[in-house]
């Protein structure tokens, strides 16, 4: 396959289509995934190719959707359960964290639960406190769940394809503001393995660690900083379980400075884990404490003027790095 221009949304759709063609155990189960084509249009058209038995429109019954996916995964199917918003995680965490995540362990390794829970999160549509959250922290804190959060079009494709081959449950969180992101990609070209972080931009003064939408925010900050003579290395984690500390530590040991950027709330969120790990593993090389730029510890307000101010921005990253390096 040659280079093609694809959006993040199209790449996800392509990944589903390619995987479903290769593996007919894959079924997509969720609200409006079939005829409607997905609330964010990811599955649009797939029902015409694969039929209603493989794009299963469901009632608005999130716990039963995830629970049914668990049962289906245990009996020969490879379900992709779609949760329309990650904000609804509070309805399904029992099925996800008490059931899907623990079944292999509780049953002594007899069986696994190879399901993918696709969902999307983040701010950007002034959709309010119950439709704009970044709740990957809850998932990351649950042993047994793999967690992928693609930042690029290529990763939207490859991480989803890879997720659909894993033997254990994967939570796959897209970002609502990335669906229209467009890139020229060659889907045939192998990307990094599952669980490996990507260096999106090399630099020697400071390491910016990010994932999902914050990667491009960090990239833009790095670009702006570069104009001021500060070279920032931008690392895209790609998966939060597993966490590729090797790549991160190698960079931080070189730069001596690290800033973690996350759209989830600050306290007890993913950024805290990264600070803890980086500090544990790179302590002697750190010239400053690892800093966290994350969402404010508040619900997301609807008012667009406030909404944009709740999450890290390019200028916040820039200012922080400048201050950190005393420039």
């Amino acid at each position, binding site marked *: 396959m040659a280079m093609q221009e694809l959006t993040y949304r199209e790449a996800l759709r392509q990944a589903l289509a390619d995987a479903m063609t290769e593996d007919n155990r894959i079924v997509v189960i969720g609200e409006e995934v079939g005829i409607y084509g997905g609330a964010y249009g990811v599955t649009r058209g797939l029902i015409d190719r694969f039929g209603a038995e493989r794009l299963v429109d469901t009632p608005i019954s999130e716990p039963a959707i995830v629970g049914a996916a668990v049962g289906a995964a245990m009996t020969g199917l490879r379900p992709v359960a779609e949760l329309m918003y990650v904000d609804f995680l509070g309805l399904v965490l029992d099925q996800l964290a008490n059931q899907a995540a623990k079944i292999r362990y509780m049953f002594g390794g007899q069986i696994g639960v190879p399901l993918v829970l696709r969902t999307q999160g983040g701010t950007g549509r002034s959709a309010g406190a*119950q439709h704009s959250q970044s709740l990957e922290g809850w998932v990351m804190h649950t042993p047994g769940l793999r967690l992928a959060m693609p930042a690029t079009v290529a990763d939207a494709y490859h991480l989803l394809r890879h997720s659909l081959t894993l033997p254990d449950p994967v939570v796959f969180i897209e970002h609502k503001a990335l669906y229209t992101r467009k890139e020229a990609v060659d889907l045939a070209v192998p990307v990094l393995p599952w669980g490996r972080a990507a260096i999106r931009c090399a630099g020697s003064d400071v390491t910016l660690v990010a994932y999902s939408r914050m990667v491009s925010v960090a990239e833009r900050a790095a670009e702006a900083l570069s104009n001021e003579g500060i070279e920032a290395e931008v690392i895209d984690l790609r998966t939060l379980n597993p966490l590729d500390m090797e790549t991160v530590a190698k960079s931080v040991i070189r730069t001596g400075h690290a800033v973690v950027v996350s759209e989830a709330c600050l306290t007890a969120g993913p950024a805290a884990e990264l600070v803890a790990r980086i500090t544990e593993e790179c302590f002697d090389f750190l010239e400053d404490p690892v800093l966290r730029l994350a969402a404010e510890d508040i619900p997301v307000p609807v008012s667009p003027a406030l909404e944009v101010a709740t999450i890290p921005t390019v200028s916040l990253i820039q200012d922080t790095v400048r201050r950190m390096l005393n420039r």
Partner: protein
Amino acid sequence: MNDRPNMPLPDLYRTMRRIRSFEERVAELYVRNGTAGSMLHLSIGEEGAAAGVCAALRPDDSFTTHHRSHGIFLARGADPNRMMAEIAGKSDGYCRGKGGSMHIADMALGHLGANAIVGGGIPHAVGAGLSYRRLGSGAVSVAFFGDGAMQQGVLYESMNMAALWQLPVLFVCVNNQYGMGTRIDRAAARTDFAERAEVFGLAAMNVDGENVGAVFTAAEALIASARAGRPGFLCVSCFRFYGHGRMDKSPYRSAEEEEAGRRRDPLLTARNALIERGLATTAELDAVDAEIANEMDATIEFAIAAEPPPLSAMFDDVYAPGEVRPEPMRMRLERILACT
């Protein structure tokens, strides 16, 4: 149309017109303002449910609503200016611009809150019923929700609790036939929703939402029953005239189905009934409509002119005033960087 002597059909017409007129302006607001929340769900076609049930409530009664609830709040007597300002995310809105269309609330009018989680507000009404029973207030609480919520487990838990504890609660399903692109018969094998409530021990009725009088009459009876300790369930059948949200052009249903659905227009039906019965003339009703149109035009101007909330408001209301507040990111960074 039902002929109960206390049925205020002219008032119900006016209420329904206000809702329709407001909702038409909401669509317009988005185009003109651009800053409103992206999540706007119009209740055109559902005016009979909103007007009929709310007219049967006492001022001290309360209610929770779902995401498609502008009409219900207007029927309760909301100030359309403050509503429109809230939808636009402005400081003059009911929730100071933080809640928007899907999280509008007003304690003064007993609106315990709209909810963006399908089914999310239902158990709150049960809790309110528990309060009213315990405090002996005599009030009733109502949970409004869509047909989509008929497939949410918490509804059954809530109905069971209300029935078991004989709470003054009414469950109202605004059955507009669709949850997004899914018609009720693709969401449930049996779609007689009243029977689902009855087996839990509720007084349950289905009613045609095209007929606002019938809704009012049914709601009156069920609210009286709830007030006396037998909670109820009312399923109001109607039709969602437009798409689920702004962007949805409803490709999943036929033009014929839409047309047939829109013919079930509670507003038109009430208008015809008023005229037929000699309760109003066409000219009088046109005057009402025009007056309301003017009022609703003004709401957009009000909302557009209103100020967005100040940035400082961001950290208010996470906790009660006087309690430990969240530390803003910039201050935190400042503090940390100052030490090192």
